[in-house]
């Protein structure tokens, strides 16, 4: 998106040049030929500018997508907490940058570990999903693009008890 104004400016310049060339000559054949050549050159230049801008945009998009993929789509939380950890914020920043280049909608699924009651955990999972949503909204993603759902403790990644399992289950997944 950021490349578009540049392309616009380049095109404006080219068209202005072609117009000036076309207008500067008299009604001679030479001047007509010159105008045609200038127009062709302008068209070629425009194509090149568009191609290069599209390439740059694609490159930028790919870098953002790579960064988002590298950041992962699972964000972990401490016990009974819905505060975003610094590493989760950094990962989310990558996703936010990517989401700003498209109009995709996302689903945030909140999860907890098995400790405590199921319905309380359902609420805690929602709090975690909301905390991720709020961070995304504050950083410029429209809230209508974000759906949040809590699964509480119903869908663990790691079965079994103990902190090594629990820490994997206290999470929000971006889908």
């Amino acid at each position, binding site marked *: 998106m950021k490349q578009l104004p540049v392309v616009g400016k380049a095109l404006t310049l080219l068209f202005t040049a072609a117009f000036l060339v076309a207008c500067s000559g008299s009604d001679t054949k030479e001047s007509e030929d010159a105008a045609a050549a200038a127009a062709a050159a302008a068209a070629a230049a425009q194509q090149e500018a568009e191609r290069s801008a599209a390439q740059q945009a694609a490159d930028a998009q790919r870098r953002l997508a790579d960064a988002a993929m590298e950041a992962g789509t699972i964000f972990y939380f401490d016990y009974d907490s819905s505060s975003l950890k610094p590493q989760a914020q950094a990962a989310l920043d990558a996703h936010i940058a990517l989401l700003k280049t498209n109009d995709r909608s996302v689903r945030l699924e909140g999860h907890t570990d098995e400790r405590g009651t199921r319905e*309380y955990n*359902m*609420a805690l999972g929602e709090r975690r999903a909301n905390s991720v949503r709020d961070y995304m909204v504050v950083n410029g993603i429209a809230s209508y693009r974000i759906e949040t759902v809590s699964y*509480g403790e*119903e*869908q663990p990644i790691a079965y*079994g008890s103990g902190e090594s399992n629990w820490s994997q289950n206290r999470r929000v997944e971006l889908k």
Partner: protein
Amino acid sequence: MIRISAALLSMVLLLGAMTARAQLTIEITQGVDNPTAIAIAPFAWQGAAAVTEDVADVIQGDLARSGQFDPVDRNDMLGRPSTEQEVFYRDWRAISAEYLLIGRVSGSEQLRIEFELFDVNRQAKVFAAVESGPASEVRMLAHRVSDQVYEKLTGIRGAFATRLLYVSVTRNPSGKDYYRLTLADSDGARPIVLLESREPILAPNWSPDGKQIAYVSFETNRPAIFRQDLNTGQREQLTNFKGLNGSPAWSPDGNSMAMVLSKDGSPDIYIMDLASKRLSRITQHYAIDTEPVWMPDGNSLLFTSDRGGRPQIYRYDLRSGSTERVTYEGVYNARARVAQDGRNMVVVHQSNGRYHIALHDLLTNRMQVLTSTDLDESPSIAPNGSMVLYATKSGDRGILAAVSVDGGVKFSLPAREGDVREPAWSPYLSR
């Protein structure tokens, strides 16, 4: 049960094959110190119908599970009387039986169970009675005999002729899990799968007349509250709000349902009028308010809230609109259930990092931890207030377990397969 809809019937037939493995077995782990020795002689079967159930065995299982009785082993019996004339007290004194129950089953499509209870030491008949009903419900008839014997000998109404709801999950490492909502007799027998889904099912709950159930299902990829008629199989989706749709709890008069919704921001308690579907908001707090349950008189709601920092039980008075905190002991008390006496409340209580079931006396505010297992949750009280069924873990598997309200009797109900959780004990059921 006659008007089972075609849809439910086909679902039941389809799922018939998988009910057996979801069946619970009972292992009694602790009973009272001096249980009453009772002999239950095999009931004589005089009916035209084929023998389908061992009625005496069902009764024996019931009384043993209560922890208050020590049934005599059938192999130790010196006789098999089924009429009063055949009873010789010395045969029963010889094997230290304090009471003797005998009975006869007759009929074909309609069965009639006549039974008599004798006091061996006093050499006297305690009482005689009859239970009758359809042959297909012979186990339920046997449970009704248990109820009568239990009440006569303990003074407490029996709750054997009741049913359980529970959720079981079969893990599927190569794909999505299977969630099943199952209805079974109070002894775990005759399980029927009411709903099967690849998405979570939770919070099963009974209507006060025992004819309908409510639960939360994620089958729409989001939580929604459903109610289902057990006779017709008819289902109705009650909610489809943004955010949480949870913890359905039927009011004692059956007309409304308390629930948790977060459609207006944070999770709050609402009451839905079931006829008009109109909602009234009960709590309005930025904290988590969840797990509502009605006091038996219908005048107040108990719920879990972390408005004080950690989850504790609060009470909302529907007449005055005032809210008061109920529990103070320990850092975590949640998901209350209240006995019909309105006095005994059970909660999930955390102490020393372990989660137990605790009994909180609402009159004296004294709390007693009932269980010694860990990760205990979802307590549900029998309609007679005697036992608490709950979910716990055995190794890595979720199982159901039970404890008496005085902590003296304990038993577990391991399933052969899968995780079992969220038991909900039915109210007393009408015939």
